[in-house]
């Protein structure tokens, strides 16, 4: 490399780092002062709420081009941790905050306020080739805890069951553990998937696999099972979820620090407006 191009490189490096440094400062200023013209908020958390929040934010930003809403996934725990650390304006969560998290928030001077923005159904998915089409809560629990390890014990073929779970940052992981497994530990040999997409991908390729995903993630590559909590097997259809007959439905939350104000309030109001509710249906969830 010639000397000239070397010094160009160095200049470039310095300029970029200065620019980045500058951008960082400017970014902080706008969020702090919340100026009237260019408002921006950051929303972070549950991967389940993510597609909904993204769709809503797109609609919202078309109507309010002067506002910026940044949405980041990562899991409910991630979003709540960020809210506690004061990094975000809204945390998305697919589970309620735990007692320990509320305590943490209070010691940090954060007062979390919960808003139910929509309902989500959790569907149990298997490969379309799998003949099993419904499971009871007891069977599901036994499969996930490790007491049942072959599909023939629940009316399927003689195949080993490959149990898929999300990682422990996921709200769905916690919800499933509380709701179906009654707080018991997941079996040690469950495969941990870093995303819901990875679960549908694996289930679509593996006849032995069973996993859980939000209803919004269902597609033709996987088969959703009917689930029986003692009152008959129910399919995860919109009618069953809205009527409350499907047993694996849960609220999705937005958490804010104190009552929402400014852009955060506008956005939350937008989500529960008529256009907002339409978007909720389109994404595959159900209005609260």
């Amino acid at each position, binding site marked *: 490399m010639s000397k000239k191009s070397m*010094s160009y490189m*160095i200049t470039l*490096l*310095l300029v970029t780092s200065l620019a980045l440094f500058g951008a960082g400062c400017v970014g902080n200023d706008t969020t702090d002062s919340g100026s009237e013209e260019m408002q921006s908020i950051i929303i972070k958390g549950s991967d389940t709420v993510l597609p909904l929040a993204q769709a809503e934010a797109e609609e919202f930003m078309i109507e309010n081009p002067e506002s910026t809403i940044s949405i980041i996934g*990562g*899991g409910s*725990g*991630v979003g709540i*941790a960020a809210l*506690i*650390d004061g990094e975000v304006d809204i945390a998305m969560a697919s589970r309620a905050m735990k007692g*320990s*998290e509320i305590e*943490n928030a209070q010691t940090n001077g954060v007062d979390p306020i919960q808003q139910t923005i929509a309902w989500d159904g959790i569907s149990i998915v298997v490969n379309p080739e799998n003949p099993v089409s419904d499971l009871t809560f007891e069977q599901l629990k036994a499969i996930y805890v490790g007491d049942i390890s072959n599909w023939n014990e629940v009316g399927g073929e003689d*195949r*080993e*069951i*490959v149990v898929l779970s999300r*990682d*422990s*940052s996921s709200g769905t992981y916690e919800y499933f553990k509380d709701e179906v497994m009654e707080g018991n*530990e997941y079996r*040690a*040999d*469950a*495969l*941990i*998937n*870093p995303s819901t997409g*990875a679960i549908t*991908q*694996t289930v679509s*390729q*593996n006849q*032995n*696999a069973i996993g859980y995903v939000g209803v919004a993630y269902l597609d033709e590559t996987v088969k959703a099972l009917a689930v029986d909590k003692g009152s008959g097997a129910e399919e995860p259809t919109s009618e069953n979820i809205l009527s409350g007959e499907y047993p694996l439905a849960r609220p999705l939350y937005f958490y804010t620090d104190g009552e929402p104000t400014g852009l955060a309030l506008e956005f939350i109001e937008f989500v529960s407006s008529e256009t907002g509710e339409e978007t909720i249906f389109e994404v595959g969830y159900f209005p609260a």
Partner: protein
Amino acid sequence: MLHRKKKEKAIESTLLMVSGVTVVALFLLCFFLFREGFLLFGDHSIISFITGSSWYPSSSPAKFGLLPLLTGSLIVTAGAILLSVPLGIASAVYISELADPKVAQLIKPFVEILAGIPSVVYGFFGLVIVVPLLQDLLDLPTGQTALAGSIMLGMMALPTIISVSEDAINSVPAALKEGSLALGSTKWQTIYRVVLPAALSGISAAVMLGIGRAIGETMTVMMVTGNTAIIPGIPEGLFDPVRTMTATIALEMGEVPQGSEHFHALFAVGSVLFLITFIINLIADSVKKKYRLQEGV
């Protein structure tokens, strides 16, 4: 003239500052890593961390046993090295000793491109192509196994191994090869008996660097190995799902509240990982130096 000198000086001191930042960054990183990791041992004994055979970070009481993660990392890395070393050395021998220079010029850029592919792309390829293939071919309940991780990591370590061993082979003095050929050895005998032994230390350095690359890789491994924190059997554990140290940190770091036990446990795992890669790099470095000394003689 004076102006030019000043400019030179300014550039020099800027560069000094920039390289100084690297050193400072490394020290700060080490300091925080070890400090945060060490805080775990207030409540947990260091022995239960190192010899513990179960990793249940969210059960109460939480169990932070390193063994499943350490053995997971080791088995995936060992598999990767078993796959990539023979392939890598064979390619290096072909490129530097046998191939027509034109063919070698054609192959080299491909090897370099292999090094430039982002790890998430490798991971996606592994999840969509390699995992189902392994499941069908080997009739396994799931293809998300240590072997899938080894295959992907082997591919990722190949460029390092090929280019470093190629350098080593190229720097074997021509006189040695010519001497061997003059004594009537065939090309293969010369490669096998003269060139490879002479380049051995360089090749060992290549292998060590490959190991370093493989053991630190996160994204790809997390996507294809199933992330089950169970101590794998050796060698049949290759066909079971495993969880590596890197994948554990990546999977769990998001949810941990700062300053919690779990947080410190992840830092402790990070410290172990850092120590391992540090030692591997030291070994690779000293092996390399040794081989340079021999060159000088």
